[in-house]
């Protein structure tokens, strides 16, 4: 006997992500799902962003890693609430894991929540956690062929931060090619060229975050 089913396989996760999103919206909390390969600079970007914006915004961070709490220790030193999720092997965060952290936060007292996903250029793009936007980092040391090789993440992201631009003199990587190839995949992508090492280009990113938080708060329910 054949039974027609027609259901989205990820429906359970998407249902939870939707509930998370409703909760974030009720609290006018702007949420970014930050993704990249391991070592592209997610935690460094967060450290810089917290330093620059913590006078203006109340920030909270969720750190996703397979193992260890090194990232949470780095973020805790910045004096913002942070929760570490250890996935114990899983290569991405899902809606349920993110929901488990909620009792640790007071969303009413927050403006911005960043979920730092597990370092991986493939899997995290497939799982929603309830974010407003996905943002991704590609560092120039990874090479300019990455948009063509990993199109899903470039397609799903609202923001692309091209990091480690201070190393451009030493690597064969064309920022122009990254821009062209990623805009082909996602014409609406906002692209920032940055160096977390020197701070170059970060001002524009900070302004983007502040605008996004302001937009979210102006939609107050």
């Amino acid at each position: 006997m054949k039974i027609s089913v027609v259901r989205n396989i990820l429906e359970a996760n998407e249902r939870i992500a939707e509930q998370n999103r409703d909760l974030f919206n009720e609290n006018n909390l702007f949420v970014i799902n930050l993704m990249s390969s391991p070592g592209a600079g997610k935690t460094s970007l967060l450290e810089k962003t917290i330093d620059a914006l913590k006078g203006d915004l109340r920030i909270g961070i969720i750190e996703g890693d397979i193992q260890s709490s090194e990232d949470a220790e780095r973020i805790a030193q910045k004096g913002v609430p942070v929760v570490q999720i250890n996935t114990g092997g899983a290569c991405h965060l899902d809606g349920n894991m993110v929901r488990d952290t909620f009792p640790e936060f007071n969303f009413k007292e927050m403006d911005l929540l960043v979920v730092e996903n597990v370092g991986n250029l493939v899997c995290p793009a497939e799982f929603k956690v309830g974010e407003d936007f996905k943002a991704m980092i590609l560092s120039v040391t990874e090479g300019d062929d990455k948009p063509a090789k990993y199109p899903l993440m470039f397609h799903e992201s609202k923001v692309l931060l091209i990091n480690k631009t201070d190393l451009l003199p030493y690597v064969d990587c064309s920022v122009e090619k990254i821009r062209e190839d990623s805009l082909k995949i996602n014409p609406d992508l906002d692209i920032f060229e940055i160096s977390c090492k020197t701070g170059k280009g970060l001002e524009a990113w900070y302004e983007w975050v502040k605008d996004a938080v302001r937009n979210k708060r102006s939609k107050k329910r």
Partner: protein
Amino acid sequence: MECWSIGVAPFSQYSIIPETGSGVFMHEMSIAQSLLDIIKEEMEKHDAKILRAVRLNVGQMTAVVPQALSFCFEVITNGTELEGARLFMDIVPLKGYCPECDVEFTIEDYTFMCPSCGGSKIETIGGQDLSIVEIEVD
């Protein structure tokens, strides 16, 4: 953990939510588990006992490797009453729609551009989903 607003948090103050994952490294395992949950639910609904086959649509733009999904499905059904079911996957190509030109087209090389007008305001109408289509049971 207490939630701090702006201020200095002592170095060691953060919570750790441990071991939430399934203990395996492929995300296809999470997908296989979700798939299995749906299959069991549907089988119960139709009072079916034996699973013969499952047919899936796998969008071209999903992060799923069909062989890995097959492998994971085999692993999680192994030794259960659903063991031995065959998994068929149809790859669904990426399709776009341009509202300006009112045309549908296949998206080649992940280039999201209308082939008629060259515009980039296009909607993706296929090839992004991961869905179960049919199960064959007894």
